[in-house]
C-alpha cells in the first residue's frame, strides 16, 4: 500500500487538483498565497505558485469581505474556496454566509446559486483557549441551504473537499487543527466523495456509535476497548452533518437497537440532539436503550491542560456511555 499522508497534504492536494481540473476554482483567505507563507500552517502552500496570485489571493483581515467576495464570484460562474482561518472567526462573516449564501438560491426562486466552499480550522487540544477552538457545526446545520462536511481521515478530507468544491451549494468544510499532521492511508482514488453519505467504518451487532471528524479518533479507540470486552460495535462516520445520511444511521440502529452519538462540540443543542431525536422518532419501539450522547462539557474551551482534557469527550467517557447503554 502506498505512502501515508496527513490532513495538510490531503487538503492541499484536493485544492491543487480541483484548481487544475477547473479554472473557475479560486481561493481567497488570509495569508493563503506563498508570499504570505502559503497559509499560517501551510495548508495552501504551493497553490499560488502553481495557479498564480490572481486565483490564489491573500486577503486583508476582513472575513465579511472575504465571504462576500466569494459569494459574489460564485453567482457568476466561479467556484470559490473561502478560507476562514478559524471557525470562531465565522462569527464575523455570519451575515454574508447565513443571510446571503444559504438563502440566495431559495430567495431568487432558483435563478442564482452559490457554489461556494468555506474551509475553516478549529478544535481543542492545543491550548489556544476559548476563542480559537469552538465546534459550531450545529449552527450551520440549523440553517436551510448549507451543507456541512467534517472529515475524519486524510483520505476522506481529500475526497470530501473535492466533493464540496464540485457541489453547487454552499458547503462548510470543517478541519481539525490539532490532528492536522496525523497520518492516514491515501485516498483509493483521487476523486470526489459523495456528500450526504455516511460511512460504516466498522460493522457490529450490539451497539452503534455515530460520530464525525476528530472525535472519530477517540471512537476508534473506544471500539477497540469495547471489542476487547466482547462488545460488537458498529462505528459510523457521518462525514456529512447536513444533510446527514439518515438511512445509513437508521439501518444500523435498527439492527443494533442501541446508539451512542459522539462529537467534540458541547452536548447541549448540538448535532447529537438532532440525531438522537430523529433516531428515536423513527425507531422508538426498536430501541433497546435510550440514545446516548457524548460531547464536550458545557463551557468555553479552557486553557489549562487538565481542564481542556476533561472538557473533551475522552475515550473513557465514550466507553462508559457505551457500557451504560448496553446494561
Amino acid at each position, binding site marked *: 500500500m502506498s505512502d501515508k499522508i496527513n490532513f495538510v497534504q490531503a487538503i492541499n492536494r484536493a485544492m491543487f487538483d480541483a484548481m487544475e481540473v477547473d479554472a473557475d476554482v479560486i481561493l481567497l483567505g488570509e495569508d493563503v498565497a506563498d508570499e504570505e507563507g502559503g497559509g499560517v500552517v501551510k495548508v495552501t502552500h504551493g497553490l499560488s505558485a502553481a495557479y498564480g496570485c490572481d486565483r490564489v489571493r491573500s486577503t486583508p483581515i476582513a472575513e*465579511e469581505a472575504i465571504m462576500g467576495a466569494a459569494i459574489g464570484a460564485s453567482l457568476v460562474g466561479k467556484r470559490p474556496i473561502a478560507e476562514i482561518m478559524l471557525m470562531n472567526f465565522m462569527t464575523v462573516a455570519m451575515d454574508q454566509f447565513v443571510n446571503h449564501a444559504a438563502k440566495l438560491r431559495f430567495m431568487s426562486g432558483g435563478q442564482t446559486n452559490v457554489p461556494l466552499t468555506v474551509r475553516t480550522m478549529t478544535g481543542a487540544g492545543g491550548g489556544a483557549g476559548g476563542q480559537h477552538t469552538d465546534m459550531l457545526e450545529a449552527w450551520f446545520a440549523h440553517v436551510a441551504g448549507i451543507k456541512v462536511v467534517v472529515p475524519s481521515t486524510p483520505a476522506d478530507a481529500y475526497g470530501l473537499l473535492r466533493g464540496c468544491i464540485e457541489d453547487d451549494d454552499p458547503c462548510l468544510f470543517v478541519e481539525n487543527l490539532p490532528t492536522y499532521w496525523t497520518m492516514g492511508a491515501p485516498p483509493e482514488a483521487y476523486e470526489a466523495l459523495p456528500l450526504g453519505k455516511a460511512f460504516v467504518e466498522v460493522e457490529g451487532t450490539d451497539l452503534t456509535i455515530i460520530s464525525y471528524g476528530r472525535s472519530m479518533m477517540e471512537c476508534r479507540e473506544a471500539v477497540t476497548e469495547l471489542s476487547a470486552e466482547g462488545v460488537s460495535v458498529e462505528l459510523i462516520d457521518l462525514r456529512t452533518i447536513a*444533510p446527514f445520511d439518515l438511512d445509513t444511521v437508521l439501518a444500523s440502529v435498527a439492527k443494533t437497537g442501541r446508539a451512542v452519538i459522539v462529537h467534540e462540540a458541547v452536548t447541549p443543542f448540538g448535532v447529537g440532539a438532532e440525531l438522537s431525536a430523529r433516531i428515536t422518532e423513527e425507531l422508538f419501539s426498536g430501541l433497546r436503550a435510550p440514545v446516548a450522547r457524548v460531547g464536550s462539557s458545557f463551557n468555553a474551551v479552557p486553557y489549562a491542560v487538565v481542564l481542556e482534557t476533561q472538557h473533551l469527550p475522552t475515550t473513557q467517557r465514550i466507553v462508559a456511555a457505551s457500557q451504560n447503554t448496553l446494561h
Partner: protein
Amino acid sequence: MTSYSEPSGTELIEIYRRAECARRNDERFHSVMQSGKLGVRIYYSPRGQEIIPAALCSHLSAEDYLVTIYRGVHDQICKGIPLRELWAEYAGKVTGTCKGKGGPMHVTHPDTGNMVTTGIVGGSLPIANGLALASQLDGNTRVSVATFGDGASNIGAFHESLNMASLWRLPVIFLCQNNLIAEHTRFEKGTAVERVADRAAAYSMPGVRVDGNDPIAMYQAAGEAVQRARSGGGPTLIEAMTFRFNGHLIGDPDEHWREGEKEAAIARDPVPALRAYLIDQGHATNEQLELIEREIDAQIDDAVEFAQASTEPAVEELTRDVLAKEVA
C-alpha cells in the same frame, strides 16, 4: 467638478424615461397597496431618488451587475427589470422574478444584471466586490455597482469592502444614495463625517459627492466612475445626494424632518424638473414626453394585470430551491 462629457438630449430623454417609469411605478404601488388589491405585503418607496439610477444606467448594459437593497425598485427598473415579473414578485405570484419566494426585499433578475437585492444594511457591498472579482478574473469589461444608503456607510461591511476593492483595483462602483436619513436617524447623527465621499480617502480611492437629483451632474459622475472601472482603473465611491419623499417603509408617518425640510425637497422633485428642463432646452416636445408617459402607463397597466392574473406558488415550492437537489 468632473471632466466627463455632458449627456446629449437623447440621453437625457432616456434618463427621464427611466426615472419617470420608476416614479409612476411607485405611485401605482401606493394606490394598489391602498386598494388592498394584489396583497403586496411590504414596500420601501424610493420616491425622490429616481434620477440617481436613471443617470447611472446611461452607462450600463444588461451585462453589468447591480446589487441593490430593500429600497431598490428604482434601481431595478432603471437597470431594465421587466415590470410584469417585478409586479408579480411583489404580489407573491409564481410568475414573479423569484416565483414569489423572495418578495420585495429580494428581487433578483440576472438577465438584466439585477443579481442580488438584500435586506441587510451593508450586505450589498461585499457581494458586489465578488461579482467584480469574477469580471476581473475573466478579463471582461463588466462593471459591478453596489447601491446602499448613507446609514450603511457606518457599518463594518462598508469598510472591509472598500479596502478590499481598492487593494485589488476591482471594477466596482460603490454608490451611496444619501437621502439624509436612516430609518428615522438623521445623517449627521449616525455618521461622524460631513461627507460620505470623504471616506474614500481612507482607502486611497477616488470619492465624489454629487447632487444625485441633478441628471447632468449624476450622469457625469457615474460616467467617470464606470469609465474608470471598465478601463482597469479600479473602484470609485460616489455619494449621490438625494431625498426620501416617503417614510422608511409604507405606513411610516415619517415625522423626523424639521419644519419645511421635506416640503422644500418635494417642491424640487427632480423628475418633473427634468421634464420641464427637456422642454425648456428644446430637447423634447411636450407631445414626445406625453407619448413616453403613455407608454410607461401602458406597461404598468399590463404589469398589474399580469400580476393579478397570475397564480400563487404551489406548496411544493417550499422544498424547491433550498439545495440543488430537492430535499423531501
